[in-house]
């Protein structure tokens, strides 16, 4: 009896947190799933049940598929270039260079800026007529490389990617730095005594001990790149054509421009499932390692 009362007591203490979780996490999730089976304009009360039609349409929608493809390209570029730069910077700062604290702060400024602000900063940099990038090319006598970076179908996505990597590099840098600082120094000392070179230390101590951090950073990078939105709106709004269309922007436009709220929620569910699977695969792969 006493045990039962204890359990009830414990349960009572959990109720507020549970109610909060159900209201703000479980219910919206359920509601999103439910809405994805309806045709609804997002305002009127007229909701029509359409079964899996929204999901079937999504797989036939070339713009949605293009946005997914762009999302993967952005993820790939961020995984390779952004994380390499972030890792390099973290190693440099961790090596005890002068002003390490200063750099740590400086590198973390872009991630705390709003995406819209970053978008406008880079829009100004890329401006074809008066931007500093084309201005710099003029100064360097490289005028033949000048172009409308965001309006050119060949450079628009890369330009968006560079802007988003500039913002994201600080976040990965901080995580890498924390990972590097958690590696015991005596491992490096022992390896030095055994005559290990810098590269041997890097490949046989740093990388293996950083594998957990690398996995977390790569998951966060993919999640971030696939959900890119605020930076794209001021830069290109998905243009030219659909060249820089990204999944989150597509969902936003379907919901708020095309009045297809049910379809937009179906796209959200698909994106959520996709990101969940990617994260799961990465975690499983690490366990296999």
């Amino acid at each position, binding site marked *: 009896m006493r045990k039962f009362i204890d359990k009830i007591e414990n349960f009572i203490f959990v109720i507020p947190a549970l109610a909060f979780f159900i209201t703000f996490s479980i219910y919206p999730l359920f509601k999103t799933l439910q809405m994805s089976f309806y045709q609804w304009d997002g*305002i*009127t009360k007229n909701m029509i049940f359409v079964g899996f039609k929204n999901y079937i349409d999504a797989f036939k929608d070339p713009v949605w598929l293009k946005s997914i493809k762009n999302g993967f390209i952005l993820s790939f570029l961020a995984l390779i270039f952004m994380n390499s730069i972030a890792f390099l910077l973290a190693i440099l700062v961790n090596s005890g260079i002068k002003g390490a604290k200063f750099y740590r702060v400086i590198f973390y400024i872009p991630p705390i800026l709003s995406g819209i602000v970053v978008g406008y900063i880079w829009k100004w940099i890329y401006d074809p007529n*008066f931007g500093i990038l084309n201005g710099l090319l003029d100064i360097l006598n490289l005028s033949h490389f000048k172009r409308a970076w965001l309006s050119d179908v060949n450079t628009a996505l890369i330009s968006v990617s560079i802007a988003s990597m500039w913002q994201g590099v600080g976040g990965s840098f901080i995580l890498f730095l924390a990972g590097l600082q958690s590696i015991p120094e005596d491992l490096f000392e022992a390896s030095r005594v055994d005559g290990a070179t810098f590269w041997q230390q890097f490949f046989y101590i740093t990388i293996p001990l950083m594998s957990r951090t690398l996995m977390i950073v790569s998951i966060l990078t993919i999640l971030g790149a696939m959900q890119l939105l605020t930076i794209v709106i001021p830069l290109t*709004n998905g243009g030219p054509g659909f060249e820089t269309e990204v999944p989150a922007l597509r969902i936003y436009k379907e919901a*708020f421009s095309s009045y297809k709220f049910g379809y937009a929620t179906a796209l959200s569910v698909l994106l959520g499932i996709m990101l969940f699977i990617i994260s799961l695969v990465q975690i499983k792969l690490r366990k296999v390692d």
Partner: protein
Amino acid sequence: MRRLLGKILGIVLVLTIVLVLSVSYGKETVKITIWHYLNDRDKLLKTLAAQYYLKTGVRVEFQLYSGDQMGAKIRAAAQARTLPDAWTGVGLKGDLSRLAQAGNILNLTPYIKDWVSRFPENIVAQVTFTKDDGFNVEPGTYGIPLDVNNMQFLYNKDLFKKAGLDPNKPPKTWNEFIEYGKKLKAAGILPFATGFGTWAGLTMIQPYEFAYLGEEKLNAARMGKITFKDAGYVKVLNLLVEMRDAGMFAPGTATMDLPTAEQMFANGQIAMIFDGSWAIGVFKMMNPNFKNYFVFFPPKDERASYQALIPGGIGAYFVVNKDSKYIKETIEFIKWLTDVPQQAKYAKESFNLPANKNTIDPRTLGPQIAEFVKGMDRVYSYLAPYKNPRTEEILIKGMQLIILGQKTPEDVVKEMDEANK
């Protein structure tokens, strides 16, 4: 005894003070919240609201939001039922009808029966639903107009002169327009830009949609009754090809937003822009020294059979939240705001055409405004919604790719027809 009496009196005094304070604290003060997107008029609207507070004691708070994102904000707030007391409407009947059907906006007819005669009938008609108009909304007027506008081309006289063109003779025909563009380009001047990255690019080709297709065919195509191909829409998009081949587009125009194009025009960096009458106030805000520019009606294309009609009519207008706690007070404020003295101040300070026809003659506000006033007679009255709203996006994106030479008008028309099935 005396001490006890003193204590009792003290307690009574404290209780009285607490009671008086709580009553005055709890007394409801009317505070109306209005969302708007009129970036260049934010300060003016707040000044007028402050005047109204001094006059009536009713607080009105104007909250400014980005024009491009305000539609999304309203739709999200409509779902969450967190709309403000009033807001400047975004879009016209298509958007309004959804909000009206969902019970988000108030049918203003009973409240503004006497007031509505102050505005031109064709302007009020743009926010009024009738019994058999197909929108399935309770008949009535759902908006109160603040200003009227229309969209035309504007040009920089100094840059025209620099290119050897007569600054007092803007192009009258499409051929002249293209020739002027070539001359400007040859003189090292960027000839033209507008907001092709957003909705504004669409408005530039609308006069030619009417000119080439005529009202009947254009609306039939938009509603999906005939294809855009059969309606002859390729000819409309070919105009962009002609502009592109003449080198008229400033670099980056394909994804440019309207404020960027406006800033370039106000800074004297482009010679021509397609913009609305509101832009006069915007240019003044961006560059107060920029005055030597003028307006011209979309140049006539000799190949087109119909008359070109320009976008415009009702400009900014207010709608009222059906669930507002202060419906009466909100409508009273909007009436005050659209009354003659306030409309005169609004027109003089913002250079917008006032909606109240009893206000000052806007032509007295300057030659550019006077030219825009002339255009009010050539504004189209009705444009059918697309059968599939995504067709509009396909068109915007297609126009961008035509400007870049990545797609042909035929490709874009084909995609529009596929989307609008």
